[in-house]
């Protein structure tokens, strides 16, 4: 009778991510990205996925390297001070990966449009940019009340959202201790939602956590516990991103990276490859 959405990562990804889906990914560049779920998507060989994420980083780069994606909606994709995203660059520059140019507001408004079933949301910011030249689904128009110049951006509705959170309960309430970014909106508008989490707690605990359940249970289909599941990205308040691993990622050959770090299904095996407890000591807060 009680609601229990806990399952394995393998189950969650095979059941809720389909080839061709538009996948909403939480987090920001290399902060609280659901990397263990991304590795599982790569292992399962998903194809032709689209990505929507506020700011892409290691998530998009890994998927680009594995040829799992053919389109990306993000306001920014990069590895911050570590450099440009190497596999993303390569995929875009070679024409394999289509960029749907977005800005922070066009993504945020695109998600907001879904709630009120609006065919568009109005925006001033991107008027006069070249984004309008490469997005034929965005149109400039004259507003009906004051005749001002405006741009209409379309709704964005992910098929599935994948969010990593520090805490979740078995019903699917997810608590984010730090920055939420657009993860609540992604979860609320996506058709299906997978959350991976560091810790499973009781609903009683969610009530007491600051921010409570920003990810609402009624939208969540799968809860998967993966400790250090965001590694090598961060998961506040437990650990920051792994700078040594990321530095290495920037240089290593992708096949070698795949064989060493993506192939291992078990999170413990993966963490051993990463450097084991000593690497973890480097990043815990």
């Amino acid at each position, binding site marked *: 009778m009680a609601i229990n959405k806990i399952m394995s990562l393998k189950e969650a990804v095979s059941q809720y991510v389909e080839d061709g889906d538009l996948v909403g990914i939480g987090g*920001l*560049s290399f*902060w609280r990205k659901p990397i263990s779920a991304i590795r599982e998507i790569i292992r399962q060989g998903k194809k032709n996925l689209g990505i929507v994420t*506020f*700011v892409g980083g290691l998530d998009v780069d890994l998927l680009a390297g594995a040829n799992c994606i053919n389109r990306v909606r*993000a*306001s*920014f*994709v*990069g590895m*911050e*001070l*570590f450099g*440009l*995203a190497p596999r*993303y*660059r390569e995929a*875009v*520059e070679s024409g394999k990966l289509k*960029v749907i*140019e*977005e*800005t*922070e*507001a*066009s993504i*945020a*408004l695109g998600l*907001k449009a879904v709630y009120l079933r609006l065919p568009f949301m109005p*925006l*001033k*910011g*991107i*008027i*006069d*940019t*070249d*984004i309008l*030249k*490469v997005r034929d689904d965005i149109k400039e128009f004259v507003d009906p009340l004051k005749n001002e110049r405006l741009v209409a951006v379309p709704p964005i509705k992910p098929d599935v959202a994948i969010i990593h959170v520090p805490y979740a309960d078995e019903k699917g309430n997810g608590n984010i*201790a*730090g*920055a*939420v*970014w*657009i*993860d*609540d*909106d992604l979860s609320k508008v996506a058709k299906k939602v997978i959350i991976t989490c560091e810790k499973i707690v009781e609903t009683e605990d969610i009530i007491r956590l600051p*921010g409570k359940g*920003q990810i609402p249970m009624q939208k969540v289909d799968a809860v998967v516990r993966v400790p250090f599941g965001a590694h090598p990205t*961060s998961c506040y*308040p437990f650990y*920051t*991103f792994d*700078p040594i691993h990321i*530095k290495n990622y920037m240089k290593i050959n992708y096949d070698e990276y795949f064989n060493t770090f993506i192939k291992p299904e078990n999170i413990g095996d993966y963490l051993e490859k990463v450097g084991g407890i000593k690497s973890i000591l*480097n*990043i815990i*807060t």
Partner: protein
Amino acid sequence: MDYSIDELITVLMAREVTNTDVMIVGVATPCVWSAFTLAKVTHAPNAIFHYIMGNTFVYEARRVSLLWLENTAISRCHRIHNSGECTLELLPHDTLTTIEFFRPAQIDQYGNTNNTCIGSWDNPKVRLPGAAGIPDFSGFYSRGQSLYVTRHDRRTFVPSEKLFFRSGVGYVNGQMPVAGGAGPKFIITDLAYLDFDEKTKKMRIKTRHPGVSIEEIQEKTGFELIVPNKVPETKPPTDHELKMLREKVDPLAIRRLEVLTGKERDEHLQYVIENEIKMEKRVMERI
């Protein structure tokens, strides 16, 4: 005191902050974070940090960090929002947040910028990270856009026809931004402090940094700059500014990652990482 170029740029940015500002600290821009923190601990004690890493307002200043900035941005915040609120409400609003520094990959004489691609958009030589929120907010700020460039050269300062993609709007055709803001106000570079002519909206040299000639600035700019009759020298960092920056604000000189390149940069990154993963340094010092 002697100073390096990252220190000069950081100090000049800090001086733009006023005591009532809400300072937007982006991600991976340690020069900006250093500048805001320096302002806060010198002339602008009431300024508020608005961290994008956290979507938070924070009142107190902490040491600049590469690895532990989430702690700084979140653990002591007095307000937390999400990116929807941040992007659609706080940032374009004129009072809720007030000053943000953008760093363009390319900029033209009207302050239009490109962070999207080098080469044509559909067949790029280099795919850059993207527009981020620049077009969403830059046209709104009533005090104008604040820009900085750490390497002033002809690859960055290009004539309009060589701007590969207009991802950020300046004075398009010399016009004010549609969104109602004041438009690009100034650009701080490693050579000069540049602003825009009130009438033509074209870029102008306001001050040249100590030891830099007008000729050098013009030569390293891919379009003709307006040169007033008088171009004073930039006021260099004071000893107090340098001392605070070096000892309190950013002792590991993380800001330098924005100016270094190649091997030097790689080594400095390694130095910062090694220092920051040391156990005993993980609590960010309150300054």
